[in-house]
């Protein structure tokens, strides 16, 4: 058995922006990992309260404020859940072009979110850089290429959402407006070009990176639609037997409050922790990837030395890359077939009702449940974000991983733990981001 420093604490006050919220804490006592905590501040609890009494039609734009990087995930989950409450879900699904446009705007979000995470955060870990900033010195062309692909994602979101930041296009019933065919056609060449560029980058990520080994027996939870790769529609499914209608997912999970974190920890009732996100989707549904992405699966598996299913979440990096190729290719197909619909959304008269639905945020299933009063106001809201669902799994990963880094310096051990957490691309503290400036480089007088 490897010797560890017998008593120590590995701690990262990771996101100590507001009263110490957001931290990693690993305690080693007598050479054994005694405790692991991941402290996450979770904003959705505030929004659940904030939404009560608001008109249901405000929910997509309000919940989008939960996350600045994945607003579409919150908008789409709220729209579908509320469409169910209003009895128009099936009409939205079958209306000309509305469902494809919902998929298209989500493709845009997957592209920009996955690329941001892969190249600004995750790849630097694997290549030994502190961040993309230091990585850009040596790998500038790769980072520029990634930024060009990210821009494609941002522009898709802007095309349908009105703008890339805080998109406002999605509405209960469909969209507030839909683009002209000429505007869609103008963006299509860059999307097609992006497929080729991202395919090359995917093979680079698979072959140029050495992936740490941490295999665990996860329960992978994702949507599983009747056809196609999971994104907006489908039942909720796992590799260990979970197979439920969307509305019943809330009954299948148990959310527990832990004192060290304001985020609720989700567990499958009667079983335990589970994983949502790219690895879960890929393992559950890799046969449904777009053909352009599916063609890369075998060479990627050869390059990383593992066949699917992958049980090592360090491989979430190539999983995201494959999904980005999928999203670009799917977007190109939708844009090629686009015909501007006569009506951007299904009209409805607010009524009392309940509805629940989850969609596949870049980080995993984002599930919403609403109860609506007869006047169309929201009586209650229940939002289960992907990072909260992964929190127990992250802590279990840290418990398994911590002995491997216990002999490293505090700084190096903390960096390795951060690397592991970044596998999950957690949506942490998206709520505050103010700068913390060093006093030593500031003028001594009030400016």
């Amino acid at each position: 058995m490897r010797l560890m420093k017998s008593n120590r604490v590995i701690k990262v006050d990771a996101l100590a922006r507001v009263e110490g919220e957001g931290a990693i804490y690993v305690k080693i006592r007598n050479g054994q990992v005694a405790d692991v905590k991941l402290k996450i501040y979770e904003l959705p609890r505030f929004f659940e309260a904030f939404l009560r009494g608001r008109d249901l039609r405000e929910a997509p734009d309000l919940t989008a404020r939960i996350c600045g990087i994945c607003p579409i995930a919150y908008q789409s989950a709220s729209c579908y859940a509320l469409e169910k409450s209003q009895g128009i879900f099936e009409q939205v699904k079958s209306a000309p072009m509305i469902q494809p446009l919902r998929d298209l705007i989500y493709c845009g979000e997957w592209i920009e979110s996955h690329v941001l995470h892969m190249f600004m955060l995750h790849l630097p870990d694997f290549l030994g850089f502190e961040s993309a900033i230091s990585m850009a010195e040596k790998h500038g062309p790769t980072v520029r290429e990634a930024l060009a692909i990210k821009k494609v994602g941002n522009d898709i979101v802007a095309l349908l959402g009105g703008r890339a930041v805080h998109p406002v296009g999605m509405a209960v019933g469909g969209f507030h407006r839909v683009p002209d065919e000429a505007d869609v056609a103008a963006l299509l060449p860059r999307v097609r070009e992006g497929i080729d560029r991202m395919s090359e980058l995917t093979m680079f990520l698979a072959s140029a990176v050495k992936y740490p080994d941490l295999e665990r027996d996860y329960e992978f939870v994702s949507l599983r639609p009747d056809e196609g790769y999971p994104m907006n529609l489908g039942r909720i499914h796992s590799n260990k037997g979970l197979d439920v209608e969307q509305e019943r997912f809330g009954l299948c999970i148990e959310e527990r409050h832990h004192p060290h974190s304001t985020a609720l920890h989700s567990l499958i009732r009667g079983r335990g922790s589970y994983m949502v996100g790219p690895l879960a989707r890929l393992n559950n549904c890799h046969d449904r990837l777009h053909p352009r992405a599916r063609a890369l699966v075998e060479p990627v598996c050869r390059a990383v030395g593992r066949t699917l299913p992958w049980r090592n979440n360090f491989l979430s990096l190539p999983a995201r890359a494959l999904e980005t190729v999928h999203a670009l290719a799917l977007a190109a197909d939708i844009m090629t077939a686009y015909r501007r619909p006569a009506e951007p959304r299904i009209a409805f008269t607010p009524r009392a009702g309940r509805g629940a639905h989850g969609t596949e945020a870049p980080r995993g299933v984002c599930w919403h449940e609403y109860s609506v009063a007869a006047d169309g106001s929201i009586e209650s809201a229940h939002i289960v974000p992907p990072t909260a669902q992964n929190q127990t799994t992250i802590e279990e990963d840290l418990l398994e991983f911590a002995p491997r880094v216990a002999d490293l310096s505090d700084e190096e051990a903390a960096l390795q733990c951060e690397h592991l957490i970044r596998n999950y691309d957690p949506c942490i503290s998206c709520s505050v981001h103010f700068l913390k400036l060093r006093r030593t480089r500031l003028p001594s007088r009030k400016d």
Partner: protein
Amino acid sequence: MSTAPVLVACCGNRTRGDDAAGLLVADVLRETPDPRVEVADLGMDPSALLNMLENRHALVVADAARWDGAEPGDVLEFDWPDIDAVREARLSGHGLSLLDHLDLAGRLGLLPPATHVVAVAIERAEAGESASAAVVEGADEAAERIRRWVARHVA
């Protein structure tokens, strides 16, 4: 459509009290538009900045900040890169600050010839709160300082 020579990029979160400071600066600037200036709301995703820099002569970024000795509403302005920020663990894309993105843009050769940073000191950033009166006032001052900087640096 031609690109405005000056980009003023503002970050913030309107649902978290004083953390909205950068966006309040954007609001003030939009009250008196300048045809030379594009005011961009980056919201909580400063990465959008990296794809907005082409063909710019100057960049100003505005954000909320904390620093030792600052009072809420104080305004600090510096030419980039004469500023330093505490490095925090970047667990999430949300953890890449506006200054991280300036740093990255610089390394990629994307920054325009002149880049300026304007920060408004804040106190509280609690969910559901409005920005404090001091920060609202600070945002007004920050906007005025940006206008003066643009007037000095852009024809």
